[in-house]
């Protein structure tokens, strides 16, 4: 074969501490430490035990950060997930109230989520010319509409057999809440799949250049469908655990969750244009926002103000890479001159 020049191309990549620190994930870890110090300074009660106790009510959303990262990496977006949470939460209550045993309740909830995801996946992949923002806007309205049909005039439903769903909100060994363990397990699985498997690589390929990925034999349709199904399933998971902590559902359940989840991902460096970022970043970003909320809550900052602070933080986070890029450019120009 060719190769006449005998030129050698390096295939080793050296990972130095400095390089790692200059990734977005590295910066997030620093920010994570900084936020914790800040939290401790504003709140006396910001202790490990307290955080562990308060965390569960925020954690349900973390379930959705994981598959949302997949969707964003694909270059898609799913804004129907808040409605799926509402629908699955509502169904969970109705199934249980109808006297079904607990395993059936769980299966019903997760199954409903999965079906919602499959619906999104089917519609989105069948009409590739439609942006997913539009298709999921449609299903957002449909899913919440179905939930509201069930909820009826009262607009809410309670989980009457509270004892039945209690196991999901208990603490193992009286310290570690079950939900934390489930979130960690899910986070590990989702991260490994995205960063280490051929499926994960295919998602990045599609998000970076859909046409090239298709020409290279990536089954674009199937990958996108699976991502939406996973999204629906995990939204069902979120609905299940949310019900376990609130013992009911109403018409506002899960409202705005989609934007919070997307915000966590974007904050974590997963660009909504696709092909960029890692789930590690998304998870750290999710934790940072969660911890900040807990501390601000402890310090009696009112909840509207917390939203303002979190929103401002997000905008700053999204701006930083652009500013960093400009500084790098200026440095290079100086070096060349």
């Amino acid at each position, binding site marked *: 074969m060719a*190769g006449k020049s005998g030129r050698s191309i390096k*295939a080793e990549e050296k990972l130095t501490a400095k390089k790692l620190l200059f990734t977005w994930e590295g910066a997030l870890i620093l920010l994570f430490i900084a936020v914790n110090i800040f939290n401790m300074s504003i709140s006396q009660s910001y202790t490990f035990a307290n955080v562990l106790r308060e965390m569960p009510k925020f954690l349900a959303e973390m379930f959705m950060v994981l598959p949302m990262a997949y969707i964003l990496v694909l270059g898609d977006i799913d804004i129907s997930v808040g409605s799926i949470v509402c629908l699955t939460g509502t169904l969970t209550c109705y199934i249980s109230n109808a006297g079904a045993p607990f395993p059936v309740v769980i299966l019903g909830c997760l199954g409903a989520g999965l079906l919602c995801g499959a619906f999104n996946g089917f519609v989105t992949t069948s009409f590739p010319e439609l942006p997913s923002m539009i298709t999921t806007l449609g299903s957002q309205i449909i899913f919440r509409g179905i939930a509201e049909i069930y909820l009826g005039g009262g607009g809410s439903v309670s989980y009457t057999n509270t004892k039945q769903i209690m196991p999901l909100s208990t603490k193992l060994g009286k310290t570690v809440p079950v939900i934390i363990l489930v979130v960690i397990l899910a986070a590990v699985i989702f991260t490994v799949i995205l960063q280490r498997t051929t499926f994960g690589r295919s998602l990045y390929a599609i998000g*970076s*250049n859909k046409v090239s*990925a298709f*020409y290279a*034999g*990536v089954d674009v349709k199937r990958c996108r469908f699976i991502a939406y199904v996973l999204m629906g399933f995990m939204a069902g998971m979120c609905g299940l655990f949310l019900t376990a902590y609130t013992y009911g559902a109403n018409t506002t359940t899960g409202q705005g969750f989609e934007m919070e989840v997307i915000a966590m991902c974007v904050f974590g460096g997963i660009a909504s244009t696709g092909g960029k970022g890692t789930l590690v970043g998304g998870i750290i970003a999710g934790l940072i926002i969660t911890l900040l909320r807990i501390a601000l809550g402890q310090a009696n900052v009112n909840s509207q103000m917390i939203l303002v602070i979190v929103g401002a933080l997000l905008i700053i986070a999204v701006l930083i890479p652009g500013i960093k890029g400009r500084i790098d450019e200026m440095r*290079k120009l100086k070096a060349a001159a």
Partner: protein
Amino acid sequence: MSDSEYILELKDVTKIFPGVKALNKVRFQLKRGEVHALMGENGAGKSTFIKVITGVHAAEEGHMYLEGKEVHFRGPKDALDAGIAAVYQHPTTYPTLSVAENIFMGHEIIRGGMIQWKEMNAKAQELLDRLHANFKPSDEIGALSVAQQQMTEIAKALSTNAKIIILDEPTASLTSNESEELYKIVEQLRDEGVSIIFISHRFEDMYRLASRVTVFRDSQYIGTYDVDKITNADLIKAMVGREISDMYPKPEVNIGEEIFRIENMSRTGFFKDVSMNVRAGEIVGITGLVGAGRTEVMESVCGITKPDSGRVFLEGKQLNVKKPEDSMKAGIVLLPENRSTEGLILSWGLGRNVTLPIQKKLAKGGIFNDLKKENALSKKFLEEVDTKAVTIFDPASSLSGGNQQKVVVAKALAQDNMKLVIMDEPTKGVDVGAKAEIYAIMGELAKKGFGIIMISSEMPEILGMSDRVYVMCNGKVTGCLNRSEATQERILKLSMEQGKSDRKEAVQ
């Protein structure tokens, strides 16, 4: 300095980008009313040079004289006002706007704050008439062909009363007929006194149009020559910096059994009743005008689009291809026409690009990516095709066109079950040096007994490399010529056999 002889003169122009000197003390002299070719390999600095002339980039050093007077452009508008306009290979038009709107974009005729549509349309019509264009000022740009879009760009240049027009690879995406039209327009403009800088990789263009040629290499000025005094070989040497003894190293290969056959394949609106075959070790060229259905046939073979009817056989077995993955599994590898949009993921490293089609095969248990294996394999194939890169992690976007094409080739070679390779315009936009290397690789593949299909619009490469040539016209195969029978005239005749009126009937 006589301001009569040179309309544009540049002296010792240096342009520095972060870390690289894109132009290093470059000289250039453009005579009044001449067509001056600017040649050089990709990355030689031609585009940067053009951007300096058109005021997009400001040079760090050097002087520019327009009609003898030194000028300093602070932006593209200054250059436009001074009468310099550029037409690019891919026209930067606004596809949903009309021809007239595109022509007058940025300098609309305005009176009392209102756009004077009637006047603009009339002026646009005047310009189009001058270019003998066959479309109207009210046509939507997006619906026109690339050639017509270029014509609009030229009209736009004329609308600003440009004295110097720069044409950047204008023929790269044109058919030979359309190129001929463009030649005529360029000659007409020249006769009207417009000075033209013509950038092209095609020697044909240069011989046909230019009186003088300036060559750049590695950001430096190499020389300016009279076109009728320089030989092809000398020019290549000036561009590449070394001699290329054999441009088309077509090896003598014992051609084996038939390995690939298409039978009566049709797709409504694109091609009809196409039958072809390829034997082991054979290089089969497919040519014809752009839009004759060449690419479309191969896309259907590879599962990118679905044909309406027809059968495909590989090594005697009928294939059932539904998606690209299926044809790849069978052993058919496609090198698509557009490297940047179909062949590569530009933001990815070279290594990842090479192993994307085979990542499942390399993965542990078919699921977990095996980075060590992937890196070693991509290194091996990238070195085999002699890619100019530092590491396999360099983003594909950082390479020149020719080297990107080599990465696409490496990506194909990495598919170890390959039996048939389909190369769609493998040397489009590739400079001479890399071209020769790609032909060499093609020859090696033929020697190893692969079947090779090469879709190409470039006559010299079709004649130089193919054992057999299929000619297509309006979605039909109009002829098949052996190497000994194939001549430029016969191919041209076959590729234009049917008049345009037959088109509808041909493909329905």
